């Protein structure tokens, strides 16, 4: 079966010489809920940026449903919805404009854009804020807008880079429920998060990245069979200091 996302020997070196991603390879099966973990600076966001076209690739290949994400980038991007870690929005635009424009970039007609935007605005409880400028919204509302934007073109592969960072418990739970619904409908989801509880609850496959490489990858239960569960497995795989790992055991 063609993977939803296939990354092979990906390497990304910034102009400064910093090696952000170093020979990273992984496959994500269609329909999977994939947790992408790692400490800050491990290369998670850079990998996502390489997949989505925000960053150029130094070497290696990325395929989205078998489509080369560099050579045939336009076709590959039609399948991806991205909710980035940092807000990358025209802050003077309204929620409605942000969704409408994103749908437009993806070639959706006016009626289709309006229908999807209305549905997502209602789904993410943004109706009362739909005409407000993005900069006027609270952090949680901004996060909802960015998530709705990622879904406007009904992508098959949803990439969520720390989608619940800075949001309240209620929204987090709502979001978990919605992501599970989307996954049940067949959407492939790649999720990065620093909340292990979130990954534990949602994901079926987990990869831990450290220093730009995949340190451990496998089904979720593999991580729980290790002593100390996911947290200890994460600390060990990410190369945390031994005393930190030991401290977690007590």
């Amino acid at each position, binding site marked *: 079966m063609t993977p939803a996302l296939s990354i092979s020997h990906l390497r990304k070196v*910034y102009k400064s010489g910093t090696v952000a991603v170093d020979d990273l390879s992984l496959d994500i099966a269609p329909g999977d809920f994939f947790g992408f973990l790692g400490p800050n600076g491990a290369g998670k966001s*850079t990998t996502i*940026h390489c997949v*989505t*076209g*925000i*960053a*150029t690739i130094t070497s290696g290949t990325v395929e989205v449903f078998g489509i080369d994400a560099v050579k045939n*980038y*336009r*076709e590959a*991007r*039609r399948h*991806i919805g*991205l909710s*980035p870690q*940092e*807000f*990358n*929005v*025209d*802050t*003077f*635009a309204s929620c409605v*404009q942000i969704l*409408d*424009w*994103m749908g*437009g*970039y*993806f*070639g*959706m*007609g006016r009626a289709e854009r309006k229908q999807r935007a209305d549905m997502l605005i209602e789904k993410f409880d943004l109706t009362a804020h739909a005409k407000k400028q993005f900069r006027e919204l609270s952090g949680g509302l901004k996060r909802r807008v960015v998530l709705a*934007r990622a879904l406007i073109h009904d992508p098959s592969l949803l990439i969520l880079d720390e989608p619940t960072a800075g949001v309240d418990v209620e929204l987090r739970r709502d979001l978990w429920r919605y992501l599970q619904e989307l996954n049940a409908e067949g959407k492939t989801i790649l999720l990065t998060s620093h909340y292990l509880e979130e990954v534990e609850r949602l994901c079926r496959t987990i990869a831990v990245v450290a220093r730009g490489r995949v340190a451990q990858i496998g089904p979720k239960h593999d991580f729980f069979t290790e002593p100390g569960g996911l947290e200890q497995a994460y600390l060990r795989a990410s190369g945390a200091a031994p005393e930190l790992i030991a401290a977690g055991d007590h």
Partner: protein
Amino acid sequence: MVINWIGLNTIIRREMSRLMRVPIQAFVAPWISALLFIFIFGSVVGGRISQIGGHRYLEFVLPGIVMLNVVNAAFLQSTSQVYFARFLHYVEETLVSPLSYAEMIIGVLVPVVVRSVVTALGILAIAALFGASSVRGIGEFIFWIVGVSIVFGLLGNIIGLWAKNFEQLTIFNVFLIAPLSFVGGVFNTVDMLPGWLHWMAWANPFFYFINGLRHSMIGFTEAPEALGIGVTFALAAIMFAIVLRLYSTGYGLRE
């Protein structure tokens, strides 16, 4: 390659929406500036200067005033669009979308042309109040306004990609565009310059832009029309090739 017309139209709609957020800065400011130029050269200085090529001095300088503002409008619109999209990171919205580089570039250029044309028409309307608004060749007039705004829209795109801060955005305007446009024949003919400066006028592309527009408005010219048209096409083609290359390599856009 299939053109993403809706995507292209969306970039244009977005940028037009941004443009309409600042109508005073975009349109009223250049019109007031042009009004002051027209008043000074029409009523104050113009009356004391004899005719040039059979035309009143205001009629002679008006094409230059229009061109100065078209160049400014095009350059500022383009640099602002590209730089702000980078500065606020919403350029990433287009980078993750199925848009070609040509669509992204044309999406920047259309609002540039709209702003330039509206600016030029507003100045013509103001000049009409002083009895100095004539256009002899409408097609030629449109060519010069649209052609020059495309050239400076593309130059602004390059600067918008290159600039690392707001100050760098203004460097080209202050040190290159403003001086070259002022010495490009806005206020004088080449003959009025000292002989040793003639070569500078001939080497200055602004001279051809102003001369071409002047010909379309009052029929006065100091250079062959074909040469000016050729310079404009060549500059637009070179700039487009550079911008396309920058987009395809991700310069200033991608990490």
